[in-house]
């Protein structure tokens, strides 16, 4: 929705930024439709689509029945016909019922038709823990979708990146899973570029330059890493990389950084085994083996179901674990 005076003065939350991107794209491109449970009248569970149905009508911001497989499949059909559907799945755990449509169809269609049919689909999904929600409402399944050939996976951490990446995702001719870190949804405001603003998919961001050690993360964990950086002794110079796009992976930025620093810690809140950190560590050993001064380390969630909120903070990587792991890597 158009910016209010308060937003102009204080900036946008991540929710505002996504809402703005959707508004702009609905306005710009008549092929764009939003669909999902309660996205219209109610503005979505997290109020991300607030106000859009009023402006663009119920044919373009479509309230659907509670039926993720149906929502996803219908969106894929729309995309096949040349529309630009943006389904919302209320929480990442609800991708379960939609998995078949997304991974067995959307992801494979272009290959299956030898390039004849493309699926310009952007699936918006609130992602990750840290809001005291139980399992299925706090999971981090990015690796599952990154592991699915044919899907691009994006996970911004800031309002500006969210806007820029969402506009790119909508315009991308291939299916994009757009994970929105719930923990950041309303956690802070920042000034976000106005008007048409895109950030290319597939580009990581160097949040802070440094020379001793590379820390790679994405989504809400960027903020735990920043907190950790504050707590580190001044003589440790950290290069912090926000992946922003989970797949395709920006290998150049990573390789350049680790060849410079010779050390790397990857921070993810997903379970440890076979998460994105595993892939990044592999890429690093393939390309930076002779530069490494220490093994690549992972700070991760555990190989178990996301626990209810009293144990949430034990599960999620925090500044303390990150500081410890950086310390161990430095001292190796």
């Amino acid at each position, binding site marked *: 929705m158009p910016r209010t005076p308060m937003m102009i003065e204080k900036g946008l939350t991540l929710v505002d930024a996504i809402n703005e991107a959707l508004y702009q794209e609905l306005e710009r491109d008549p092929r764009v439709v939003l669909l999902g449970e*309660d996205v219209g009248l109610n503005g979505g569970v997290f109020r991300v689509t607030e106000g859009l149905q009023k402006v663009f009508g119920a044919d373009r911001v479509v309230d659907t029945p*509670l039926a*993720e497989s149906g929502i996803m499949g219908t969106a894929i059909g729309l995309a096949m016909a040349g529309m630009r559907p943006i389904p919302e799945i209320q929480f990442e755990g609800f991708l379960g019922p939609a998995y078949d449509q997304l991974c067995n169809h959307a992801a494979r269609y272009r290959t299956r038709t030898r390039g004849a049919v493309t699926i310009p689909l952007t699936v918006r999904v609130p992602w990750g823990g840290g809001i005291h929600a139980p399992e299925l409402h706090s999971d981090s399944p990015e690796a599952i979708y990154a592991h699915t050939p044919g899907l691009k996976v994006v996970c911004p951490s800031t309002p500006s990146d969210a806007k820029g990446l969402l506009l790119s995702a909508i315009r991308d001719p291939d299916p994009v899973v757009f994970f929105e870190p719930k923990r950041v949804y309303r956690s802070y405001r920042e000034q976000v570029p106005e008007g048409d603003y895109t950030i290319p998919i597939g580009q990581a961001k160097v949040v802070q330059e440094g020379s001793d050690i590379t820390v790679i993360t994405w989504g809400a964990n960027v903020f735990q890493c920043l907190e950790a950086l504050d707590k580190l002794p001044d003589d440790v110079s950290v290069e912090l990389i926000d992946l922003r796009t989970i797949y395709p992976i920006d290998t150049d930025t990573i390789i350049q950084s680790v060849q410079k620093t010779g050390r790397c810690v990857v921070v993810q809140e997903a379970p440890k085994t076979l998460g994105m950190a595993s892939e990044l560590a592999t890429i690093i050993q393939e390309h930076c083996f002779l530069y490494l001064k220490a093994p690549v380390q992972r700070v*991760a969630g555990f*190989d178990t179901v996301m626990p*209810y909120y009293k144990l949430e903070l034990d599960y999620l990587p925090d500044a303390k674990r990150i500081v410890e792991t950086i310390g161990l890597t430095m001292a190796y």
Partner: protein
Amino acid sequence: MTQAHAPTPAPSPAKPDSPRAASRRRMAEQLPDATLIKWLRDMFLIREFENRTAQAYQQARIGGFCHLYTGQEAVAVGTINALQPDDPIVHAYRDHGHALARGMDPRACMAEMFGRASGCAKGKGGSMHMFDKPHWFFGGHGIVGAQTPLGTGLAFAAKYECEVLGKSLPNPGVLDGQPPKKKVALAFLGDGALNQGALHEAMNLAGLYSIPVIYIVENNGYSMGTAIHRGTTMAHDLMAKARAYGIEGRVIDGFDVMELYDHFKPLVDACREEQRPAFVDLKTYRYLGHSMSDPQKYRTKDEVDQFKAKDSIDCMAAYLMGERVDAAGKPSLSQDQFQEMQEEVRALVRDSVEFAENSPVPDPAELYSDVFVNPQPNLSPTAEYVKGARNPLL
């Protein structure tokens, strides 16, 4: 694009499908006073429990998401009391009421919401994940509709015990090799879950193999902010869905617990006897928001008040304290007894809150417990992983 079916009007409490004739209470009326009084108490317990839950949630002593059952109490009490204690039950996420009606200790239920180690799922599941296997209560599910095939499977197993195995599987209250019993499973779902594929797959399977599961749609008229006719075809005649799968369907009034029982008990008995499925459109209403953060823009206060006017607890209390009298004209429940009951329940619920509050939070070691039956090295997370991971640098 307009919807193909003319939208049915907003829900109104006026017209449940089953007639409210005077003779309808035959069956429930014949139950002893003590049974009916227990039902009233259980409904009141659920109401009071939810009130305290709401309070604790607002004070941030309960975290996560929390879906309250207030207004729907008669459904859990009326249906679950028509079962045998070892008939399996599955439910969705608005599950505190069912757990209590099934006999879960309020302490275990409250402690679960407080995320404490003494909760029914060791404080690892929360409000949506009430489990009580000893009471054959198989939870609490956060994925809408996902529980319905599970209920079908539980019923399938019971039928298999009778027709193939010839004995019971070892389970709570069952000794090895005991003769099998004819059972019925209840699969509760909300009206929103009517639209999930899982339900339709389950119903087709149950219809095909005549599996003794009853799908109970707790039709409170809304799926979050979506009124049923905005999300479901044939909302005015859900029996069409049952017919499509060759399953008997019934519409039952869920406001009056005795009427509910009168219609539901014979259905349970028939499904048990004939080992076949059924589908129930149980008309009910939730008084509060979908969850604790729901501005409720989708309905009017007037509508809510209309339903509150036929509150199931009020009706039952009025019946027991007025209409229902013995030969000497003495009502089954006196004002004083009702007062006492309320006090007893309030104390019980207060105790559950205190218990929850004073219980320890789960040890971080619980993070890696209960993932596998037989944890093996390098398979499930082990103690070594906690706090800093198994680290080759250490």
